[in-house]
């Protein structure tokens, strides 16, 4: 049984002060094994962050089935959702002030998840210092986020996210605001975490170089998985598109598929094992 199982996940936002409803996820189907390092790519507004929010327990699915380990995220009460967030999952966001409280130092920031666990002061401080040392910030523990560089802030955020030893790490474009060298370092840290601690990690990114470093790559377009690659290489992504089927049975194929197929005016259609196959006449 896969560690993460998502079936027909739908999320619809109700726009405030209007009657419009915005569908962000339109039926995601996904399975992720424990210890996998996954990257999610896709254009802006495709639903990547929404998926991450649902997996982090910060947003509730409108419909569908979401299971992480033995936790059904689509059936959580507020109390168990909080418990899930504070025990099972760690999050790292692109914007630094979503990871850290700007008014206190990074040691105190890392301490917060440990406080939530009810640990004694000495244990908390020891663990927080260890974590900050792991991300290379042992000399900056008394600094506030505003006194750190971008990379340091993200590393401090990572320390926060890992403080409570989560099974699942979710990162939303963690390298988005970093230079290539710093992002490379961060990525290596992600990989080592994944390898040594066996943490399942899901990372949203725009950077294909970053995506290459992951085990698997998933592409989301318009709220649906539009392709995936088992190697994390973009070239091996299987091309999937959603098209409109009218009541007369007509569809319009995407232009680049038509071009790639180099089809003439007529094609053969075959229905086999629930799939529709187009071949050149």
């Amino acid at each position: 049984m896969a560690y993460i199982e998502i079936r027909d996940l739908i999320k619809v936002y109700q726009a405030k002060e209007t009657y419009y409803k915005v569908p962000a996820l339109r039926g995601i189907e996904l399975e992720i094994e424990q210890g996998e390092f996954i990257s999610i790519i896709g254009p802006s507004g495709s639903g990547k962050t929404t998926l991450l929010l649902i997996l982090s327990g910060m947003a509730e699915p409108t419909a569908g089935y979401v299971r992480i380990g033995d936790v059904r995220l689509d059936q959580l009460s507020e109390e168990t959702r909080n418990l899930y967030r504070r025990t099972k999952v760690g999050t790292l966001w692109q914007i630094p002030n979503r990871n850290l409280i700007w008014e206190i130092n990074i040691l105190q920031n890392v301490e917060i998840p440990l406080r939530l666990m009810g640990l004694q002061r000495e244990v908390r401080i020891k663990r927080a210092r260890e974590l900050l040392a792991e991300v290379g910030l042992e000399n900056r523990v008394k600094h506030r986020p505003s006194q750190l560089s971008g990379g340091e802030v993200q590393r401090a955020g990572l320390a926060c996210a890992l403080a409570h030893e989560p099974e699942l790490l979710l990162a939303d474009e963690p390298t988005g605001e970093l230079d290539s060298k710093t992002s490379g370092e961060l990525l290596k840290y992600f990989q080592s975490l994944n390898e040594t601690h066996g943490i399942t990690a899901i990372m949203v990114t725009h950077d294909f170089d970053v995506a290459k470093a992951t085990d698997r790559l998933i592409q989301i377009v318009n709220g649906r998985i539009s392709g995936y690659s088992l190697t994390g290489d973009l070239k091996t992504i299987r091309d999937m598109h959603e098209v409109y089927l009218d009541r007369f049975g007509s569809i319009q194929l995407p232009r680049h598929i038509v071009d790639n197929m180099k089809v003439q005016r007529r094609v053969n259609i075959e229905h086999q094992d629930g799939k529709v196959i187009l071949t050149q006449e």
Partner: protein
Amino acid sequence: MKRDYSGLKKSRRYLLQNFFMTSRSVFNTLFNTKISDLEKFQKIMYFLLWILSPILFVILPLVDLISMIFLPGLHLFKPLFKAGWKYGLISSVGVTLAVSVITQYVFFIYSYQFQAFDLYLADMDRRYIQVEVETVTIGATYDHYNSFKRIAELAVGFANMTERIPQIDLFFRRSTFTQTFDPLLNSTVLPSMPLFGTHGKLWTFLEQNIANGTAPDPFSDDQVLVLMTRDFYNHSSIELYTQQKLYIPVSLNIEDSLTDPGAQTSVNVTGIIFLDDLPKYNVLEYQYGIPVETVLELSETAAVISLWPISANRLHDIAKTVGTGDIIEDLFYDVSQIDAFRLNLEITYLKILGNKLKESYLTFASYLSVRITSPLINLIEKFREEYNLYQTFMLAFLAPIVALTIILTVYAANLVRKKRDRQLTILADRGTSRIEIGSYLSLEAFIVGAISLAVGVSAGIPIASLLTRSSGYLSFGNTSLPLKLELSSVSVAIFGSIGAIIVIQLFNTMTLLRKRDIDDYGKVEKNLPGFYKYYIDVALAIIGVALWYVYEMPALNAFKYKTARYVGIPAIVVLLFGLILLSQRLLPLFSKMLIKLSIKLKWDIPSLSLREIYRYQKSYSRSSIILCLSFSLVVTSIVVPYTYQDFNYEGAQYDLGTDILIRNFPIEDSILKNTLEDMIQVEATSIVRFINIRDPQGVSTIVSILAINPETFKKAAFFRSDFSKASLDELLADLTYARDENSTSVIGQVDELSLFNYVEGSVMKMTYWAYNESNRNEFGSPFFYTDVTFTFLNTYNVWPLFLKELILDNVRASYFHFVAPLNIMDFIQYNYLSSINYLYVKVKDGYDISDTADEIKPLVGSSPVFDVERQLFVKPDSPRSSILYSAINSTLLMSFAINAIILGLFASIQLIDKNKELATMKAIGISSGQLNKYFISIYITMLAFSTILGLIIGFIASSMLMSILSISRSMPSYHMNFPIGQIALVLSILLVTSLAGATIPTMTMSKNEVGTELRQSA
């Protein structure tokens, strides 16, 4: 790793609950234990547990409750408090202000009500109930004295008020005059010198204060004491141990009495008491005594007094009196027992006592014509009315302040919420439950509330103390009303404040606790706040106008005191808010208009920045509402006192009729009159005489007549602009005509005449209770009834003569008030002792009226001298004025405080909000100067908008408030005083401070390094 953090908290609660159950069981066991059955050690344990278990009984549930609320969030306290104390401080601004408003208001009101009534009583001498029985045959024995006293004592007993009336003084009085030689005038004079007989405490007091000589021998039958002023002493030849003759008038020519043996008696003067040196009669060991002249109702400058039997003997010696005199009994009320918070109850007590007294005199002595007067009832009622009006006035000012505090709290809470949302979202992200966040926020609210309580109360006490010394507009003189902190006032203030803190902090916590949407940042707040959708502003304005219309309805005129409080003031407050909210609808239009103007004038930066007002209407309109309200309050608190001061002064002049008024002026003393006229400060004088004409039974007064000299009166008296339809010259010409014709033609009060359908030229014939001393010989009584006919020459609206003092003592029940020439007195047969003579004195411009009055006082002996400055309704140094001015002063102080707070918040918003915006603008190349211009043009626009509206709305509110305040007087007209200079000055200070407060952060930040700014505001 330990993950179950809740176990400890749960076990703690179980432990507490078990403790509670145990202590309750122990308490129950103790309750049912017989102490006599216990051993010594058991007894000690019994008492220890008896003390301990109830404490646990109360404390444990409290500890349980506190642990239930605060424990879940305690583990987050340190980092969160460190991260959020700044915001807690901002949200505490409103709380602190609320606490300080409550504290100062409660302490002031309590201090005022506890003490002002007492001081008010001190201002008034007549703190007793008086019984007067006219023409009683006085028995020359102590038994007669005692039997009379007993009647009153029985009534007091029946009314169950023995504790409240611990002392009764009784005396009789007979109006007599004497003959003496005035060495200063070098002539023989016949001054009035009534004969009194008394006993008991009053007599003991007099005996103890004999200046010269000794007390009369109780066994003599003619030894007396003479009470007189030093001035009288200098003007007379009365000496110790000499015989002095007393006479009663037997005809209009009082000199006839000198030769009539039946109209005179002789007394032996054994002692002299000088009224000038006499201490006040301290009837009930009060802090404040009563002058003996007041107790004896002595309006003369000299009197003869002795023990009851001696004086009664002398009275019987004057054969024509047939031994009759007036008995007066003063029932002294222990005013220290009056509960200032239950004045209505006291009035009821007094009324019950009055009825019992009447019944008692009727039952035990069969006296029908008993007159019972209780100046104390009038006094309490007057105090209550004034107090209610001033309290209403204070509430009128307080209501907008409270509203401002609420708006400010919401404003601060919204600001804090915006800033703290991010912190709390991160916490939620890390799995913090709402209970934990709520618990932490409650703890923070508790700490902030406790600090606010301490700071607010500390600020409120000195403000209240300052307000109790308010003696005028922004004047804090040394009035005798110290701040009084009673247990009850302290507890009301503390509990009130705690209540306010709980409400405000609950609101703040709920605002922060609302379920947050992770991406709900940076929303553009176009459109006005939500309530505008429902036309709340229009509804408020309409309700305000409707309420005011109801208040102004002529049918409700009789209840103005009550409607002022329950209809008038709410109308003003509702209308004020309605107008301010309504006017905010103009803000988008105003900013649009300015945008167009700035585009035309090619002011690039302002045209850009003004769009921000249009874009963020919601937040700018909130600021504008507060500024508008605050500015309009400032305007009101300047305009109202200025207008009222004028109104007050005019009112005092109207009450008195002139600058200085001398009551009981010896009009036959032409030398004294000339002396006064020759004073350098005196511009003119005029003699005015006053008499009441009673119905044929002599019970109630039908007509009050003021007799004047038309020529001199015009020069000495004060006239209001609306005193009559006809001109003053026309009216005075009418009076001159009446005088020259020797007629009983008069000028009447227009509303009184119209009530009985009299018009100019009408004739009114009336039968009245006449008095002629010569009738006594022939018919046995000087009283009889006869007719008089008045012809109405003209009418007046308000005549500057029927002063308040007269109204209180004489003409309260008059149906008609006529003005006539002096010689009308020749056509009316009246008891000359019941007329009052006045001298009006007009002071020249440039001279101080009070100083002049002080100079006149020694010249006129015991005649009371009133002056317009001391007559001011709201005297600068009177506690009565304190509440009015303190209301105004507190409003002004609060307005300034609120303005300062708003500015502080503005600055905070700038510091917190605009950081990134400023840095970004600088990053795209906008210079510091342009940045300043950008923001300053927004502030100027906002302030201009608020100032214009504040001025207009403030003026409307001032007019309405003055209209309510003016009901405390019978004067209908007043002129709004709009001190442009003062308003301009105060508003300029406010505007400059506002502008500085708003721009300084902008200017400071615009100098900072862009990179640092951008990074720090991430």
